[in-house]
């Protein structure tokens, strides 16, 4: 095993990981980014429509309006201390991103261009939509990732590309580092660090129809769960309303922000029924359920499970300048020119609201509450701070990654200087290595792909936009069967270099455990809130369920706990749009 030593180890090279790396390196630390794909292939590059900050470049705006929208968008399950901090810091963070080089689109006055997005309104939700999403055409993720990556190179951040992190090394004194598999060469590496940050992204790949990259298998969350630490609010999975049918590719909310309409088979703008005031720009959970409702009522296009997203009435030039990537994607895959024909869309799994519980310094919380796990941090989609609560607003995720990624980087830089390296836990390393070796030497008796596909298909079916007790119980039973089958997967005889199958088997382990966590949390929550909709409990129940779920795993047994929501300013109210 090859050993490395760095002051700060960051797992994941998306916006969250790179923001942290940049801040920590700026403060003079020796920082290593370890990621299973080169940073420019991270899923953050897929973010399209923009990133949220109440800059007020186009019309008056305030962080407090953004705060209110984020609270209401989260269906009052977000922690308001974190939400307020986020909305305030989003403004300086947007300027920071501009200063380091993000190629934002510009208004005539030379300022960052902003546009409408779902869930973002003026005057504490009472006013009309507001232009709050800072855009770089429809490529905001790519623009931010490339800029952060370049600046990290300038500060000599060390990148370990195509290294799959397999275990976090955890002892009583805290996290001493990680184990990672060098995918290209097929070797095990040990990274010893004073501080470790997980910025490993979400797990929406658990679902068959998903906007997510193939790599979004929730590895960081899976490792944390396996280490006996809790995950928070895992039942809240966002389904994006508009993904290109039948592929599931993201069609940004920006398309609706620029004026796109949703139409059913009869050509009706059906959002008039579901959200009479905010229409297509209601929060995502509401729009996704509306589309699902139309499809189930037989009003999908030609009875099929999709509806139309129509932008044929928009100016050709606007489409080409502000939505160029989406136009190209629709042309390439569906063979449709969106100026001439409506785009076929359906909801797809998109985002993990829950994750590793952290405080606002991004320190991982041991019992999910106050006590921290020394030297272990998490940020971005894999973490839950919680600003998204039960439903995330569009454009809040890229900004969350930047705001909290920077906070993690700064905090690690501050405390790292006073620390020494912890000794590595040799027993854990031996165990971890044995796990990999067993897989590599086992003769296969079952198909890896079959297990994964069955899991993804049934998660969509049984634990999707609409859930109930019987579908969730069915899913739990299926997961147990798949976990038994998993023990029969073997990789004997695979070549050492670029063993894609090994990566997939290790990902599948996390996928199975995370699925069980999601289903158990969903089964327990007997109410409907945000993205979690129980057809057998269709209303929100603040009396019993205004609380965060925590789930722990130990030797295959799962245990639930709960903690209160932090409410500082806005009391829960009925959520109408």
């Amino acid at each position, binding site marked *: 095993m090859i050993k490395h030593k760095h002051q700060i180890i960051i797992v994941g090279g998306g916006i969250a990981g790179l923001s942290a790396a940049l801040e920590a390196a700026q403060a003079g630390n020796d920082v290593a980014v370890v990621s299973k794909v080169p940073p*420019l292939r991270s899923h953050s590059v897929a973010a399209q429509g923009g990133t949220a900050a109440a800059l007020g470049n186009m019309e008056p705006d305030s962080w407090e309006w953004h705060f209110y929208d984020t609270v209401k968008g989260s269906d009052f399950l977000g922690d308001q201390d974190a939400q307020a901090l986020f909305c305030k810091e989003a403004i300086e963070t947007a*300027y920071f991103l501009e200063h380091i080089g993000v190629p934002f689109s510009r208004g*005539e006055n030379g300022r960052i261009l902003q546009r409408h997005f779902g869930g973002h309104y003026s005057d504490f939700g009472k006013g009309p939509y507001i232009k709050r999403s800072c855009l770089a055409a429809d490529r905001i993720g790519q623009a931010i990732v*490339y800029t952060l990556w370049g600046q990290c190179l300038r500060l000599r951040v060390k990148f370990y590309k195509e290294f799959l992190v397999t275990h976090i090394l955890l002892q009583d004194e805290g996290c001493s580092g990680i184990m990672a598999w060098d995918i290209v060469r097929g070797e095990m590496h040990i990274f010893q660090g004073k501080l470790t940050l997980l910025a490993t992204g979400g797990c929406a790949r658990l679902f068959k129809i998903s906007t997510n*990259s193939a790599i979004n298998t929730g590895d960081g969350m899976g490792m944390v769960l396996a280490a006996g630490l809790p995950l928070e609010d895992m039942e809240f999975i966002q389904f994006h309303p508009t993904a290109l049918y039948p592929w599931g590719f993201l069609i940004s909310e920006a398309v609706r922000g620029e004026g796109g309409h949703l139409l059913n088979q009869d050509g009706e703008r059906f959002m008039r029924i579901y959200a009479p005031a905010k229409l297509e720009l209601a929060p995502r959970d509401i729009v996704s359920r509306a589309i699902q409702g139309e499809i189930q009522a037989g009003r999908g296009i030609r009875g099929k499970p999709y509806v139309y997203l129509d932008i044929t009435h928009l100016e050709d030039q606007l489409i080409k300048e502000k939505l160029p990537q989406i136009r190209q994607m629709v042309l390439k895959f569906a063979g449709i020119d969106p100026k001439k024909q409506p785009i076929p869309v359906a909801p797809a799994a998109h985002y993990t609201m829950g994750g590793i519980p952290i405080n606002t310094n991004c320190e991982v919380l041991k019992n999910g509450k106050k006590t921290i796990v020394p030297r272990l941090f998490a940020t971005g989609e894999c973490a839950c701070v919680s600003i998204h609560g039960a439903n995330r607003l569009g454009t809040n995720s890229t900004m969350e990654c930047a705001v909290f990624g920077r906070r993690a980087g700064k905090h690690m830089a501050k405390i790292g200087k006073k620390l020494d390296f912890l000794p590595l836990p040799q027993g854990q390393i031996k165990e971890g290595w044995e796990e990999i070796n067993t897989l590599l030497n086992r003769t296969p008796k079952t198909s890896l792909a079959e297990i994964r596909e069955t899991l993804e298909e049934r998660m969509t079916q049984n634990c999707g936009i609409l859930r109930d007790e019987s579908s969730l119980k069915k899913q739990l039973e299926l997961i147990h069967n798949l976990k038994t089958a998993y023990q029969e997967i073997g990789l004997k005889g695979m070549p*050492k*270099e670029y063993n*894609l199958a090994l990566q997939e088997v290790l990902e599948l382990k996390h996928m199975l455990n995370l699925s069980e966590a999601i289903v158990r949390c969903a089964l327990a929550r007997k109410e409907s809130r945000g993205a979690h909709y129980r057809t057998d409990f269709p209303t929100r129940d603040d009396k019993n369920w205004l609380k965060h779920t925590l789930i722990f795993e130990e030797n295959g047994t799962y245990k639930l706990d709960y903690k209160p929501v932090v409410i500082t300013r806005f009391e829960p109210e009925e959520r109408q749009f």
Partner: protein
Amino acid sequence: MHKIFFIQRFSPAKDKRPYWQKYVLKCKPSWVVLDALEVIHSKDLSLAYRRACRHGICGACVININGINRLACETRLADLPDKIKIKPLPGFSIIRDLVVDLTPVYEHVEAIKPYLITKTKPPIKERLQLPSERKRLDGLYDCIFCGACTGACPTFWANQEFLGPTALIQACRFLMDSRDEAKEERKKSLRVQPGLWQCHSIFNCVEACPKGLNPFKAIVTLRKAILFE
């Protein structure tokens, strides 16, 4: 719809040289080449390739399909003939099967300093940039770093020190940015790096770019800037 795939296989530990393996597959009309690779891989776990986003924005899955460098995730099977030959991206050393070592591309991009350099203190709010100034970055900042252009460049094949179109399009992106304050240093280093003057205007890069960008135009823009500005 049946398609016959000939996929180039190579495992450095056991193969002396690459060889072709044939797979016959029943395919759906909506499938792209990546879908076919995933199905083949599900039955033959030893097949190695790269992939991530699946919709043409991450640049991971670039390979050579019937002689053209393309993204596997964006190439529809319906648009291809019945026989499909798949090779790794040419011009690079093969790690295994369809996976190549893109280190030269990364090194060259790093060599051109792919980051905004500013010396003056930034304002409290954003730096101003007019839409006309921002427009000069279009067709440059949207490069997805897949390497299709560099892998199609005969000059790069002959000389791995040649910066190549991927790095040069990045160089142009930063030289064109109205906010950058290191233009003279950039020009000075581009003058001496093996890049701008070695390009033989073969245009393979233009043809290869899956995003429809024009690296050659970027090279010409850089030459003009260095010679005349």
